[in-house]
């Protein structure tokens, strides 16, 4: 009797779990396996001949792919530390007992809820080489007009990435994700027990020393979490770069000018969608996935030991 009841409950439980597991399994787990299968074939619009690892051999010799990995690294380094540092600064600011802090928190957060397509269009307009307000500001201080999103020349030196175009996109990404970092850091700051800060103050710690030795270490779980999430997000970033980098426009499918904004996610999309090389694009996607996994694991190894938890 009792056993029958348990069995009924188990069956009922599996039925409860079934819809979620089915959807997550079919559209999240299965494709991660199937992408590996696809990558072993020539696969244009339809599945073609079995190629073994030839797509991967092609990949490591493809300068476009190697460049896309380099550009992804440049983009990650240009966005993640910057948005985290400014986000932390703003969170510390908002953590003070200042008037209107609710309003400012709201203001900083707004970009993050708006669509990346719409804000990418606005920023493209800001960076318009002929009529844009960015050039208007430069003109006001006597700097010559720039081509911004159309400029393949490097920001620091003509041939080295990032191009001015990628640098401008990096700036927009920081602007977009800043509010996310601010809000998460702020909730981390709020979670620090007040007694600890009080005790440190009584021991004479204040200002930067208090931050350096007490606040920042206690904030490390939040910092670590943000680092991980932001790095993964930036490594697979697509929408902003696609829309601002001239995606779908007359001058190319994904990642312009001259491919200097074609980061890894755009490379995958370009080979998949624009050139319909699905097998080859799958190989690139799989490699990108492995790199993301490796970087996450590395992040965990490097930083998790330095994370301090307030007991």
């Amino acid at each position, binding site marked *: 009797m009792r056993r029958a009841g348990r069995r009924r409950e188990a069956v009922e439980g599996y039925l409860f779990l079934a819809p979620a597991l089915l959807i997550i399994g079919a559209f999240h787990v299965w494709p991660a396996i199937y992408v590996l299968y696809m990558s072993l074939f020539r696969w244009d619009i339809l599945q073609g001949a079995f190629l073994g690892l030839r797509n991967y051999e092609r990949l490591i010799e493809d300068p476009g792919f190697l460049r896309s990995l380099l550009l992804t690294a440049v983009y990650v380094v240009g966005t993640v530390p910057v948005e985290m540092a400014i986000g932390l600064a703003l969170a510390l600011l908002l953590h003070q007992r200042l008037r209107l*802090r609710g309003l400012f928190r709201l203001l900083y957060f707004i970009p993050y809820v708006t669509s990346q397509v*719409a804000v990418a269009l606005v920023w493209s307009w800001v960076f318009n080489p002929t009529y844009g307000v960015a050039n208007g500001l430069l003109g006001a201080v006597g700097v010559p007009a720039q081509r911004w999103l159309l400029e393949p020349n490097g920001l620091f030196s003509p041939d080295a990435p990032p191009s001015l175009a990628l640098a401008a996109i990096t700036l927009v990404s920081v602007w977009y994700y800043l509010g996310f970092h601010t809000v998460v850091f702020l909730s981390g700051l709020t979670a620090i027990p007040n007694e600890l800060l009080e005790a440190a103050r009584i021991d004479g710690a204040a200002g930067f020393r208090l931050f350096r030795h007490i606040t920042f270490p206690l904030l490390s779980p939040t910092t670590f979490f943000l680092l991980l999430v932001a790095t993964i997000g930036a490594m697979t970033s697509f929408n902003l770069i696609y829309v601002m980098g001239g995606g779908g426009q007359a001058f190319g499918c994904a990642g312009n000018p001259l491919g200097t904004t074609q980061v890894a996610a755009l490379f995958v999309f370009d080979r998949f969608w624009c050139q319909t090389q699905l097998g080859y694009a799958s190989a690139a996607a799989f490699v990108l996935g492995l790199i993301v996994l490796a970087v996450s694991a590395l992040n965990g190894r490097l930083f998790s030991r330095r994370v301090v938890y307030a007991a």
Partner: protein
Amino acid sequence: MRRRVGRLVLYAAMLGAGVVMAFPFFWMLSTSLKSQAEATTFPPHIVPDVWLVSNYALAWAAAPFGRYFLNSAIMALGQVALGLLTASLAAYALARMRVPGRNLIFGALLATLVIPPEVTLIPNYISMQRLGWYNTYIALIVPFGASVFNVFLLRQAFLQLPFELYEAAVLEGCGHLRFLWRFAVPLSRPTLAIIALLTAIRAWNDFQWPLIVTDSMSLRPIQVGLTIFRSDVSTNFQLLMAGSVLAVAPVLVLFLFTQRQFIQGIARSGIRG
């Protein structure tokens, strides 16, 4: 005195950051009200000389925005409804039912979070073709109808429900489904609201997936429509900005009304799009 100067510096920093963060929205609004001649004046005017609210009517007429909005709304509501249903059932089973392998299932679900969406894009596109879902609302809704984050959040909420409540209900002969529906769901309303809100806004802003699985005007959501609109209006920047305002307005209104829950939800779950 020093304290007051310090305060002033803090306020100045906060305000400066606020101006930078808000400027693109101001600029979008300002441009959307200019004539084409004024929009293409250089150096640009910060505030329009003449305010042409009629640009919005022109933009609305220049593309099927009504249809785009409807499609986005169907996609968002569909994902919210399906997402709440699947998450409630699964979270309840994981939190409250004696299911063999429960912890294993939960662990496996969490492990799937390491799969980046870029990896699943191409096979999912193939699946839509094979299932005959390509260019249908089903393709826009079902693949996003369950999320591990939602299950995780809701499981936490269900775990916090008082256990005595359940025991009392069982003595009354209440089954799991009824308990879930009558007690667990109503008592977890704040969490459900956060999930609904995050899902709706994410669906409204989604771009890459609808771009590849729709190919007819009648199914395209607003973000895809907006990129088509860009090539249609070419140098009519004031119309493009009016269209962009239209595309972000519903989300902004929703966000302004729910910002407290929304920001708390983000801080709690740490979802980054």
